């Protein structure tokens, strides 16, 4: 029996084309510096933060939801771990686990509201975003907590066989999520439920449990991102990286995730994260502002959507 190839592949193909074009263009503009070892290293240090956060956003979007609370969760995890390591003088491991545990504690509330009370994800996570950020603010009183033990800084700044640690963490997260989505029951249910939750319910899928796990997973990945972030900055604060929130949604859609749920795969998302980071780094090398980069990200997304639409019309 033959296998069908979905038309949804086209988006990934377009994306790869855009990436190649951008890399060549920026490579020429920067006289090859973009592809030099230095800038590759800097990309590998910077990409993972947006990358892991985007991975956290991906599963909720596949179920047809969204998680606006990931940045707040990342910061909370970072703040708790930071307080643990500095003020309380806890061992690094304990502080890190404490941070992740608190992230998951709020995730339980979030998952409960969405899965069992059926609060629309966008509202539940909006409320929790503000709430969790508030908790971090109360804990830090708005100050920056800085000065972590050297061994903890390795997570954000060290290298393993020449590969930056953050990138290693990102790679492991991506691999974990990839296996979860493609090779487990949970992953299969996520896609099916994202397409039609009534049908999965009638087929005996425990929808609520799948949704609950989805939001637990997003908080867990957000927590990891928070740890990488504070290690990289050697500082923790209640409202770091808030501009990343909309970018994660953008990266997911650019990578082929259908915001209605049910479609989109991890490799596409990874490629889209790379596009965004390469553009940012290239612009950085050219001495252009990060704002121009963000404008360009928007334009790239709109461009991909428009091309997609034209191809779609051509087929129909």
């Amino acid at each position, binding site marked *: 029996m033959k296998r069908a190839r979905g038309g949804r592949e086209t988006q990934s193909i377009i994306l790869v084309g855009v990436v190649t074009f951008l890399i060549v263009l920026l490579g020429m503009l920067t006289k090859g510096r973009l592809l030099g070892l230095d800038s590759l290293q800097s990309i590998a240090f910077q990409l993972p933060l947006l990358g892991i956060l985007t991975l956290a956003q991906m599963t909720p979007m596949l179920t047809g939801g969204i998680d*606006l609370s990931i940045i707040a969760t990342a910061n909370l995890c970072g703040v708790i771990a930071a307080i643990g390591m500095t003020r309380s003088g806890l061992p690094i491991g304990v502080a890190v686990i404490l941070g992740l545990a608190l992230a998951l504690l709020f995730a339980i509330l979030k998952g409960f*509201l969405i899965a069992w*009370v*059926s*609060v*629309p994800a*966008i*509202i*539940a996570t*909006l*409320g*929790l*975003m*503000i*709430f*969790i*950020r*508030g*908790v971090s*603010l*109360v804990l830090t*009183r*708005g100050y920056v907590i800085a000065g972590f033990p050297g061994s903890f800084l390795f997570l954000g700044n060290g290298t393993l066989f020449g590969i930056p640690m953050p990138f290693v963490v990102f790679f492991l997260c991506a691999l974990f999520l990839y296996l979860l989505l493609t090779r487990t029951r949970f992953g299969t249910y996520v896609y099916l439920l994202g397409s039609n939750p009534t049908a999965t319910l009638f087929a005996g899928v425990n929808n609520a449990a799948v949704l609950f796990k989805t939001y637990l997973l997003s908080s867990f990945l957000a927590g990891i991102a928070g740890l990488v972030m504070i290690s990289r900055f050697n500082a923790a604060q209640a409202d770091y990286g*808030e501009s990343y929130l*909309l970018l994660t*949604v*953008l990266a997911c*859609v650019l990578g082929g995730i259908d*915001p*209605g749920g049910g479609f989109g795969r991890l490799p596409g998302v990874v490629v889209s994260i790379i596009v965004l980071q390469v553009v940012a780094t290239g612009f950085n090398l050219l001495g*252009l*502002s990060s*704002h*121009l*980069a*963000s*404008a*360009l*990200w*928007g*334009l790239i*997304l*709109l461009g991909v*959507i*428009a091309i997609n*639409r034209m191809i779609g019309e051509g087929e129909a």
Partner: protein
Amino acid sequence: MLGRIAGRTEVYLAGVLIVLSVVLFILNPKFLTAENLFDVLRNNSFLGIVALGELVVLVSGGIDVSFTAIATVAQYVMGVIITKYMVESVFFAFLIPIPIGIALGAFNAFLVNRTRVHPVIITISNLNVFYGLLMVVSKGRWIYGFPGPFRDFARLKVLTLISEKGVDYGLSIFTVAWFFIAFATWVVLRYLPIGRKVYALGGNSEAARRAGFDIFRIQLFVYCYIGFLSGIAGFVHAALNQMIQPNAIVGRELDVLAAAILGGASVFGGAGSPLGVVLGVLFIAFIKNGLILMKASAYWHQVIMGLIIVLAATLSAYQQSLERKRRRWV
């Protein structure tokens, strides 16, 4: 007649507001002084105006998160023009941001209609595009030192009273503008065919198409309307603060969304009213003001705001599930 203007959500919210006011009054009698209330109303007029625009978009089944960038672009262009040419006419200054807002809104509508991609994605992209380009062009410079009339205008009051300390206070022109816009929005949504079409589109887009409604025209209307109000709100914001910082407004998208949702606007379209949204904004404003009066640490504001949104959403979800239970699958 009351049922005509106020639905269930509005009545609940009004009740909650009254209880809240009484509690705040008991905790700190200063809350219910005219001076304080006028101040709260004035300071929230920006939020109140854009929330009304968001309401119209939400009712149509869409969403717009780019309005903060639109308001910023509109007020910035205005700021550049009036400071560069020292424009003395406030009225002329007021006219600058409006067409900019409408044009950017039309761009949103065009993309939403043509690409048929979820509007949240389109407007996130445009938020980045509008704001990014503005920051590039403006290099993030602040604008201040507005012409004299512009400064005087911001102090304009419809009703002026003198406090015991001899400071004059009163009902700000911006508060009046906010309430007037709320009333106008109510008239548009309730009594103009285009307003009814907005509700119809949000209720069942396929039926709207079959009924022969021009979907693009409705979308054009709603996104231009929020663009239009963003333009006005940009003016109000600049006048209230007497300076323009390009990064002052962007980032408040979700606050506005929260106010609209608290006020009963549905993220799925088809429901919501201007009165509800005004009450939603007031609710948030009262809580913030109450916390300030109680000298609660500012860090608690967000904790409480977040809790309120979660609580309100939980209640409404619970209510809906009760209603669903009566019908179930059959």
